[in-house]
């Protein structure tokens, strides 16, 4: 679930001068002298179905915005002669006309054409890969857990022309989401409390920024600032207790410090940090709901935008701000519920097993 990655492919999809579309975006014109990039058009939503662990039944469901329906429940298998996508699809990101599906327990990234969803290449022999982000059409990065022992994980640098790993960079423990913002790559080290900053020109580590415990997701905003959401630290003694609260950190590019705000309650771990199309409104899951906060807001919200349900995956359509939340019981088909930007429910549809994220294209 990385709408901000989908963003990287936007130049081809920009529609200039559409005042009507602009008005849909929830930006505040008075605080925003620079109107930023032109509006975005999306037609399809790829829903990443993680699948059941060890059963290799992960796949992508294709939702058509035009017909408001799922047009293909198992897009990869049906586009590739029935071949399974693999075991545990953790995430998917887009670069140009290609999709990069990180298949965690198959230790690979499957590269597909977004037009026909044919497998174009497989980046194999990764070590428990989690998320993918690209810096350019030539270079991508994948976070890899490597081990759950607490030891450091790594980021592999991928040559997107050859789909080979050219370098691995040691980062912190259990790296999760990563984001390229400007000329830097920000990697959340979920097993600890830091973000590793990597220079995308040299692929050298520039430094490590302390944030809250358990950073899990990261986005860049319209001003080039980096937002990191942390789950807080959970200790089982014997019942799970959040010993530190979740938090939201903001990093100013070039600095190796962050401004961190804690969530009010320690009863829940915030996750799934997502940003809207105009990159000025943040969304995340917390306390069984969806919360939203503007990038200019001084305090974290205390009331949710959406109250119902714990979502495994959260997405915001960059075109119109429609919110997508997924339910994943894992025993049966998962369900996606759509909401208006106001939080009012629209509809819901069934997808595959374990939906955990969305890609808008």
């Amino acid at each position, binding site marked *: 679930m990385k709408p901000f990655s989908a963003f990287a492919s936007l130049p081809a999809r920009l529609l200039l001068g559409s005042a009507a579309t602009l008005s849909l975006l929830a930006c505040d014109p008075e605080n925003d002298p620079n109107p930023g990039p032109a509006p975005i058009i999306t037609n399809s939503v790829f829903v990443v179905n993680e699948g059941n662990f*060890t*059963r290799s*039944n992960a796949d992508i469901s294709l939702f058509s915005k035009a017909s408001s329906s799922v047009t293909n429940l198992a897009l990869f298998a049906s586009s590739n002669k029935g071949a399974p996508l693999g*075991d545990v699809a953790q995430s998917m990101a887009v670069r140009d006309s290609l999709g990069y599906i990180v298949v965690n327990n198959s230790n690979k990234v499957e590269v597909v054409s977004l037009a026909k969803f044919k497998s174009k290449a497989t980046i194999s022999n990764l070590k428990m890969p989690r998320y993918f982000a690209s810096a350019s059409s030539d270079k991508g990065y994948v976070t890899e857990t490597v081990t759950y022992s607490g030891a450091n994980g790594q980021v592999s640098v991928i040559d997107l022309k050859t789909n080979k790993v050219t370098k691995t960079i040691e980062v912190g423990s259990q790296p999760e989401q990563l984001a390229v913002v400007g000329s830097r790559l920000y990697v959340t080290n979920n097993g600890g409390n830091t973000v590793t900053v990597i220079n995308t020109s040299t692929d050298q580590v520039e430094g490590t920024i302390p944030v809250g415990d358990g950073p899990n997701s990261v986005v860049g905003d319209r001003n080039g600032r980096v937002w990191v959401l942390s789950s807080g630290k959970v200790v*089982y003694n014997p019942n799970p207790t959040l010993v530190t609260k979740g938090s939201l950190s903001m990093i100013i590019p070039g600095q190796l410090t962050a401004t961190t705000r804690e969530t009010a309650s320690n009863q829940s771990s915030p996750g799934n940090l997502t940003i809207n199309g105009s990159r000025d409104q943040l969304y995340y899951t917390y306390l069984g709901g969806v919360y939203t906060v503007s990038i200019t807001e001084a305090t974290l919200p205390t009331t949710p935008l959406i109250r119902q349900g714990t979502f495994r995956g959260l997405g915001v359509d960059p075109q119109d701000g429609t919110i997508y939340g997924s339910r994943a019981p894992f025993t*049966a088909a998962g*369900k996606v519920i759509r909401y208006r930007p106001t939080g009012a429910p629209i509809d819901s549809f069934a997808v595959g097993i374990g939906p955990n994220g969305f890609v808008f294209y």
Partner: protein
Amino acid sequence: MVLQTRFLTGPAGPLVWLTAALLTATAQPAAAQMGTNSPDTARVLQLPAVRVAGIRATRFAVGSRQLTLDSLALDKYRTGTLADVLSARTALYLKNYGPGQLSSIALRGTSARHTAVLWNGFNINLPSLGEADFSLLPVSGTTQIEIQPGPAGATYGNGAVGGTVRLSSAAAADTWGRGWQGAAQADYGSFGLGASLLMASFSNQVLALRTSLSYRRADNDFPYYASEGGQRVSRRQENAAFRQISFSQDATVRLGAASELTAAVWLTDADRQIQPGIGTNNTHAQERDQSRRLTAGYRHVSTRHEWAARAAWFEDVLNYRDNLNGLSESSVRTTQAQAEHTWRLASNASARLGAETQHFAAWVDGYGAAPRTENRYSAFLLLRYDPRPRLQLSLNLRQAVLPGRQPPLTPTAGAEWLALAGGSHALSLKANASRSYRAPTLNERYWRPGGNPNLLPEESFGYEGGLVHTLTATPRLRLKTELTAHQQLVDNWVQWTPGERYWSPRNLRQVQARGLEASTELRWTPGGTYQLTARGSYALTQTEKTQGTAADSDPVGRQLPFVPLHSAAFSTDQAWRGWQLGTTLTYTGYRYTDASATAFLPGYLLLNASVGRTLAVGPGWRLLVLAQGYNLTNQDYQSYQNRALPGRNGSLSLRVLWR
């Protein structure tokens, strides 16, 4: 009655009355055994020795379907596991994760936790998981397997919801006075399969001993096909080797005229690599399962009373290790005792009152540092009454006492009526209704995070009805056909569901399982040395969620995952002049892999065959050479989703038998 009166007037004639008691108490089994083993049985009955014959628990299970795999049926699988026998010989579905890998049973549309597996009367399901892995139960540890599908909580206790599998190693009626016997076997087969077995037994009229030691290993580096990038690619299975040892020792001593002491030990040790799913990360997972089971019992039988007391001590070790998560250890010790008293109220009525206590002590990494302990108790009353020679009734009650929330009183009522017994035909009608329960497992209560100490026990109510037709066309041709219809509702069905941070078990739903079971067996002994036995069975099993709590997002009215709607088995055994030829053909219908009933695994047909020859090589010495072929049609199939299974493969065994 005359004989009993004689005993009451003076204890001088115990031998006569005990023989008589045997005949009344176990009339049917004894008769059946005389049919198959007449010389020995006759010898036993003629000997001026005592016979301690208790009333078997099955006598109180009137109206239930019973499948028995005796030592003859088990003969070809001596070095195999229960998973091998049951999947080849019955229409039961075992969810199998690979050869030698986890095999879990689903009786009558329920889950593996809903089958009680008993060994010599004690539940041997792993207390942490609440189920048994049938690949960890070597056939050599048992002499008889009885399967009773359907709920029978009153008779067999916790977990007898979908059914009960009873293993016994106790001295059978035909054991006594056989002297020394022994067998040694070596197997060699595909994909590095090797197995060996040593068995020895001794019995006179006072003592019966049986020892068996078996070893089995395989590399399981079999080829299989995977679909990768639109291509069908041949791969070789990795990380699926195993080795397994089983040792069992049984002893029965007759003490005087009416008492006996029994003791049994069963040690199993399996070291398995865990076969990774097709196209999944091989984390070199490895599992060590060790079970140590000890039991001892005492029984005293008199004309009107029977006392029995048994105790058992089990230790189950399950240590799992993989590259990603490291080592996870678990060890559970179970101490159990059972005591019962049976009244033979009359020749046609008996009653048994008993109690059971279980103490669990668990050292499981997932439960935290301190050991967890739990006690469970139950008391039961079993009644059997035959108001007419052709009508048998049973009524059983059990009340369990569990930590936390209590299960209801679980009664079972059954009836069997021999409706027609004329000429060559016999037709029995049978019916049974039962309430059953399943206590939450230790994992369900104590695993952290997620374990839920407030779980309610699962409850079920089920009934079945059916008929048994026996056609004895000639003394040499016998056809037995059985048809059973069953229905059951399981309430408070527990399932692990994901929460924000971790999974938790919850009492989620009510499940309805119903179906039809048909089976037929033909035995033909036309004379000479030729014998033919052919068996066919079919099961239609429909099982679906009927209602659920708000937290349960699974849809209602769809066949539950991994329960085939159709399954069938057909087997033949032929013998002629020392030659034997056996075939088994099993069909497993499609099985959904998710509760929405969208994706499914296709059905498959498996053909196995064996051919063997027994040669007499000296006085008392025989040699059996047996070749077995599996999956002869080279099916590419999956029992559990995404786990490869081998194509055509075979084994050759050589067995030396003494006496």
